C-alpha cells in the first residue's frame, strides 16, 4: 500500500530529513546503524560479560573487608560500627520502654535525668535567659553522666563483647538515688509503658491544640483503631522507631543544610549527593546497612535516618535562601554576629519551610520504617509483610489500614502544627487556661491512667475480650476477601492473562531486545538536542556506567519497560484529571484531597490492592506503581494550568477561542513545561516503586536489590540501587533541562 504524496511535498520531506540538524533523520540513521551492528555482533546488543567491570565484586569485597579486617589505628571498623549502634540504641531503648516495653525502675534513670535537666532548663529560661538555661541543663547532665559513667562503660563493654574496664559496683553515686528511693524504699520495681488510653488521648489533646475539635476527633478515631484491632503493640513498635529517627534525621538535615548555605565547597559536594540519595530507592539503603550493622531495630533506625534526612536539608537550604534580603540586612545592621543571625533571624524567619521539611522527614521515616521490616525491624510493617507473604489478605488489609491511619495522623498533626506555629497571634487576651489547658489536660490523663493501670489492666493495653476487631474477625475478612477475589478472579484472570500475554509480554520482549548501543546512541542525540554537550556528557556517561557495571543489560531494559509502561498510563490518567481539576473548583477539591492522601501513604502499602486483584506478575507490578506515581502528573498539570496568567486566558477568550481551542492552542502549550516537570516526578516515583514491587516478581534492577538482601551481598544491592538512581537522574536531567529552556522561551518562571 502506498500513500499518495504530491511530488513537491515528497521533495520537501526528503529535504527536511536530509538537513543535518533534523533530529528524525539523525535518529533513523543511528537506529539503523546500531541494529545492523547488533545483528552482526552480539556484543553491541548485550554488553559482553567478559567486559563487565566487576564493581559489584569490588564493593562486596570492600564491605567484607570493612566488616572483618579494617582498622582505624586504635580500633577496628567493626568496633566503630558497634559503638555507633550502641549509641543509637540508647534512645531507642528509652522510646521502647515508654511505648511498649515494661522495665525495671533503674532503666528509667536516664530518662528521669534528662527530663529533670530539661525541666530545670525550662524554669531557668523563664526566669533568666536561654544561655544560662542551656548551661544549667548541660551541667546537670554532665554531673549525672560522670556519676553514672561506670554503668555506661559497663553497658558499652557488653555491646562490644569485651571485659568491663571498671567495676561499677564500687561506685554508686547520686544519679542512682531516685531509682533507689522508688524501687527499694517505695516498692515500685517495675514501670509499665504509657497506657494506650494516655497515648490516644495525648494525641487527641495535641490535635485539639493545633487544629481544634475536628482534627482531634479524626486523630482519636484513627489512633483508637490501632487499639481496638489489637495492633497496639505493633503500632507502638513502629512508632518507637519513628520517635527516635525523626529528631536525628531532622537535626542532621538541618545541620547539613546550614553548612551548604555557608560554604560553597560543601554545596558543591553535598548537593549532588542529595540528588543521588533521593533518586536511590529505599531498598538499596538496606543492603549496606545490613552488612555493616546486621539485622534488627538499630540497623532499621540507621537506614531510616539516612534515607529521611535529605528533605530536611533541602528545606533548610530553601528556607535560608528565601528569607527576604531586607530581613537579613536588618539583622546584620542590628549588630548580629553570624551565629545570632542564623539562630535569631534566618532560621526563625524560615520557620514555615523548616516545618514543611519536618513533615516530610516524618512521612519518609514512617515509609522507611515499614520497609525496614525486610531487615527484621519489628512492628506493623513486619506483620504486614508476613501476612502478604502468606497471602492472608484479611490480616494484611487490617494492618495496611493501620499503617495508613498512622501516616494520616502524623501528616495532619505536623501540618496543623506547622500552620499554628508559623501564624503568630498576640497572646495578651488569652487566659491562663487557654494557654496551659492542653498541657494540664495531658498530664491529668497521664497521671490518672497510670494510676488506673493498677486497678484495670485494660487501661494499659486492651485484652482480647475488649477488642472490637479480633483476629477471628480478620480471618473472616480473609475469607470474604478471598471469596470475592476468587469470584472476581474468574473475570479478572482472563483479562489479566490477555493483557499480560498479548500486550505486556510482547512489549517486554521488545524492550529486552533493545541493544545497549542503540539506547546509548539515541540518548546521546536526544540529550544533545535538549541541553547541549554538557547534558549529553552527563547522561551518556551515567548510562554507560550502568551498562558496564550492571552485568546483565536485561535488568536495565526490564526496568525501562516497567517504568515507561507505568509512566505512560500515569500520564494518560493524571494529565486529564489535572486538566479537569483546573476547570472545576469542585472537582479540584476532591482530586487534591485524594492526591494529598495518596501521597502520605508509605509506598509499601500500594502492593496490597495489586496483590488482591492480580496476585503476582507483571500486571500487578504496573498496577501497584500507578496510584503512587500518578499524583505528580495530576498535581503539576493542575498547577501548570492554574499558573497561566489570567490575562492570557482572558485574551484568548476575547479573541473568540472555544473551550477546546483555548485548551489546545493556549493553555497546554503554555503549561507544558510544568506538566513535563510532573512527568519527571512520575518517572522518579515509578522508579522508586519498581524496587519495592520486587516483592511480587519482575526481573529488573529492583529484584537484584531484593535478592541481595538475604545474602548480604552488598555490592550487588548497592550497584543495582545506583543503577536505578542513574536511570532516574538521566530522566530528571533531560526533562528538567528541557522544561527550563522552554520556560525561558515562554518567559514564564
Amino acid at each position, binding site marked *: 500500500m502506498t500513500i499518495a504524496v504530491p511530488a513537491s511535498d515528497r521533495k520537501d520531506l526528503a529535504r527536511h530529513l536530509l538537513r543535518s540538524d533534523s533530529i528524525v533523520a539523525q535518529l533513523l540513521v543511528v537506529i539503523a546503524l546500531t541494529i545492523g551492528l547488533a545483528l552482526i555482533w552480539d556484543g553491541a546488543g548485550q554488553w559482553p560479560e567478559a567486559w563487565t567491570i566487576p564493581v559489584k565484586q569490588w564493593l562486596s569485597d570492600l564491605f567484607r573487608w570493612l566488616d572483618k579486617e579494617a582498622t582505624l589505628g586504635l580500633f577496628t571498623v567493626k568496633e566503630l560500627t558497634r559503638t555507633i549502634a550502641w549509641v543509637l540504641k540508647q534512645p531507642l531503648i528509652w522510646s521502647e520502654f515508654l511505648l511498649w516495653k515494661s522495665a525495671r525502675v533503674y532503666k528509667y534513670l536516664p530518662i528521669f535525668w534528662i527530663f529533670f535537666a530539661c525541666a530545670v532548663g525550662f524554669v531557668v529560661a523563664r526566669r533568666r*535567659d536561654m544561655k544560662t538555661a542551656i548551661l544549667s541543663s548541660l551541667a546537670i547532665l554532665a554531673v549525672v553522666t560522670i556519676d553514672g559513667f561506670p554503668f555506661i562503660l559497663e553497658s558499652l563493654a557488653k555491646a562490644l563483647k569485651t571485659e568491663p574496664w571498671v567495676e561499677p559496683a564500687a561506685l554508686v553515686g547520686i544519679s542512682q538515688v531516685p531509682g533507689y528511693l522508688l524501687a527499694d524504699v517505695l516498692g515500685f520495681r517495675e514501670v509499665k509503658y504509657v497506657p494506650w488510653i494516655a497515648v490516644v488521648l495525648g494525641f487527641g489533646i495535641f490535635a485539639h491544640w493545633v487544629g481544634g475539635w475536628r482534627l482531634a476527633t479524626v486523630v482519636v478515631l484513627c489512633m483508637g483503631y490501632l487499639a481496638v484491632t489489637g495492633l497496639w503493640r505493633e503500632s507502638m513498635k513502629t512508632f518507637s522507631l519513628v520517635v527516635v529517627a525523626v529528631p536525628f534525621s531532622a537535626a542532621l538535615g538541618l545541620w547539613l543544610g546550614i553548612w551548604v548555605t555557608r560554604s560553597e565547597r560543601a554545596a558543591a559536594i553535598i548537593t549532588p549527593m542529595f540528588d543521588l540519595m533521593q533518586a536511590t530507592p529505599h531498598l538499596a539503603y538496606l543492603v549496606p546497612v545490613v552488612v555493616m550493622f546486621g539485622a534488627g531495630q538499630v540497623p532499621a533506625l540507621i537506614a531510616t535516618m539516612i534515607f529521611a534526612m535529605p528533605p530536611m536539608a533541602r528545606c533548610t537550604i530553601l528556607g535560608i535562601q528565601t528569607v*527576604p534580603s*531586607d*530581613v537579613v*540586612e*536588618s*539583622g*546584620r*545592621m*542590628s*549588630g*548580629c*554576629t*553570624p551565629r*545570632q543571625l542564623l539562630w*535569631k*533571624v534566618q532560621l*526563625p*524567619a524560615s*520557620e514555615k519551610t523548616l516545618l514543611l521539611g519536618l513533615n516530610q522527614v516524618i512521612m519518609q521515616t514512617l515509609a522507611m520504617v515499614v520497609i525496614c521490616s525486610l531487615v527484621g525491624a519489628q512492628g506493623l510493617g513486619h506483620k504486614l509483610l508476613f501476612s502478604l507473604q502468606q497471602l492472608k489478605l484479611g490480616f494484611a488489609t487490617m494492618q495496611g489500614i493501620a499503617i495508613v491511619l498512622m501516616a494520616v495522623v502524623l501528616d495532619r498533626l505536623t501540618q496543623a502544627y506547622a500552620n499554628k506555629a*508559623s501564624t*503568630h*497571634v*498576640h*497572646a*495578651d487576651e488569652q487566659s491562663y487556661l487557654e494557654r496551659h489547658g492542653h498541657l494540664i489536660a495531658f498530664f491529668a490523663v497521664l497521671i490518672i491512667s497510670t494510676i488506673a493501670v493498677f486497678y484495670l489492666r485494660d487501661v494499659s493495653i486492651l485484652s482480647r475480650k475488649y477488642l472490637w476487631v479480633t483476629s477471628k474477625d480478620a480471618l473472616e475478612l480473609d475469607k470474604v476477601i478471598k471469596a470475592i477475589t476468587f469470584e472476581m478472579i474468574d473475570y479478572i484472570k482472563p483479562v489479566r492473562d490477555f493483557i499480560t500475554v498479548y500486550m505486556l509480554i510482547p512489549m517486554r520482549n521488545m524492550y529486552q531486545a533493545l541493544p545497549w548501543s542503540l539506547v546509548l546512541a539515541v540518548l546521546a542525540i536526544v540529550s544533545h538536542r535538549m541541553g547541549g554537550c554538557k547534558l549529553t556528557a552527563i547522561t551518556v556517561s551515567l548510562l554507560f556506567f550502568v551498562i558496564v557495571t550492571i552485568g546483565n543489560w536485561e535488568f536495565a531494559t526490564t526496568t525501562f519497560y516497567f517504568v515507561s509502561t507505568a509512566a505512560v498510563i500515569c500520564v494518560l490518567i493524571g494529565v486529564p484529571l489535572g486538566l479537569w481539576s483546573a476547570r472545576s473548583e469542585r472537582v479540584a477539591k476532591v482530586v487534591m484531597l485524594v492526591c494529598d492522601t495518596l501521597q502520605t501513604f508509605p509506598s509499601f502499602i500500594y502492593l496490597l490492592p495489586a496483590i488482591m486483584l492480580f496476585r503476582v506478575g507483571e500486571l500487578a507490578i504496573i498496577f501497584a506503581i500507578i496510584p503512587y506515581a500518578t499524583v505528580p502528573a495530576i498535581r503539576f498539570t493542575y498547577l501548570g494550568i492554574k499558573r497561566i496568567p489570567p490575562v492570557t486566558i482572558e485574551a484568548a477568550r476575547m479573541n473568540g477561542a472555544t473551550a477546546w481551542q483555548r485548551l489546545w492552542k493556549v493553555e497546554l502549550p503554555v503549561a507544558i513545561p510544568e506538566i513535563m516537570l510532573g512527568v519527571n516526578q512520575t518517572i522518579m516515583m515509578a522508579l522508586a516503586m519498581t524496587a519495592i514491587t520486587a516483592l511480587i516478581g519482575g526481573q529488573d534492577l529492583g529484584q537484584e536489590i531484593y535478592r541481595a538482601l538475604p545474602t548480604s551481598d552488598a555490592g550487588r544491592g548497592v550497584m543495582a540501587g545506583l543503577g536505578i538512581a542513574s536511570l532516574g537522574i538521566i530522566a530528571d536531567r533531560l526533562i528538567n533541562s528541557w522544561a527550563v529552556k522552554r520556560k525561558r522561551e515562554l518567559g514564564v518562571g
Partner: protein
Amino acid sequence: MPGDVKISCRNIWKVFGDDPKGFMTAHNGSPSSEALAAEGYIGAVRDVSFDVHAGEILIIMGLSGSGKSTVIRCITRLNDPTTGEIIFDGRDILAANDQEMIELRRHKMGMVFQNFGLLPHRNVLSNVAFPLEVQGIERGQREARAREMIELVGLGGREEYFPRELSGGQQQRVGIARSLAVEPDVWFLDEPFSALDPLIRAEMQDEFIRLQKLLKKTIVFITHDFEEAIKLADRIGIMKDGRLVQLSTPEEMVLNPADEYVTRFTENAPRGRIVSARAIMERAKGKPKKANGAGVPADAKIGEIAEQVLNSSKPVTVVDENGFALGAISRERMASALFARDGL
C-alpha cells in the same frame, strides 16, 4: 551651619563581575564605561565621593539601578566597596574587621529598610528590642527602652502585635523605632517610605521631620522621589549610572542644575517652597543700610512672599535678620522666578 564631617567617602567604586579587584587594578582604579561593558563588569557605584556633616540630612536621589542603595550599603558595609575609602568618625571603616563592624553597627549605626525588614516571628516589642537583645542587654532594661521607642513613634498599645497584623505605615514605624533603639549616631534610611501609599507616605514624612527636630541625628536618606528629597533634605546628591552627578542644597540644585539630567527633575519642582528671597533679589549696591519700613526676610521662601511682592507696585525690600536691606525683588523678577523663566 554644617557641623563636623561625620562620614567621608572618597572615590568609592563597587564593581560586580568575576574578579572586580583585579579588573580595577588593571585599569588603574578608574575604568571607563567602555572597559566595563567590554569585559562584562557592572559598575554599580563609580568614583563617588562626598562628606556627610554631623546633624544634616543628606539625601541621595536616583532612579532604580543608579547605585544609590549600593552606596548606602557600602557605607554600612553590608556590601564591601571594591575600592575607595570611607572614614567614619575619623576611622577607616574598610579596615575594620568583622567584630569591629558588629560593634559599630551595635552602637553607632541605625538603618531603616524599604520593605521594613521586620522579623515575622517576633512581636513589635521584641522586634524593637532586637538590636539590644543581640548586644546582650538584660530583658527588663531592653524592653523598657523598646517601649520608650514605641511610644516615640506613636505605636503605644501595640507592643504585642505581630508584623503581619499591622498596616504598612505601622510596620515602618516599628522599623524606625528599632533603628533608633540603640541611639545611633548616624541614621541610614533606605527608601523608607517608598513601599507606602501616597497619603501614608506624606504622613510618615511629617513624622520623620518631627522626629528629626527631636533627635537631631546625622542622616543619610535614600529615595527615588525628587519631591520627597526636596521636602526633607538639607543637601541632595543625585546619582545616575553609578555616578554622583550633583551634590548641593535643593535651592542650588533648582537654580543651577549641573546638567540636562538634573534639569529634568528640577523643572517641575515647587520652586516657591525651595528658592529663598536672597537668591532672586536684585542685590543692593554699596554698603547695606538699615531698611526703613517693612521688608521681607532674606531666608523666606519665595512662595511665602509671592503674594506680597506681586501685589506691590514697587519692588519689595529684602532684609537680613538685623534689619539691613540686602536688596529688592520686583514683581517681574518674582514672576519669572516662580515660573522658572530664564534670566535669573
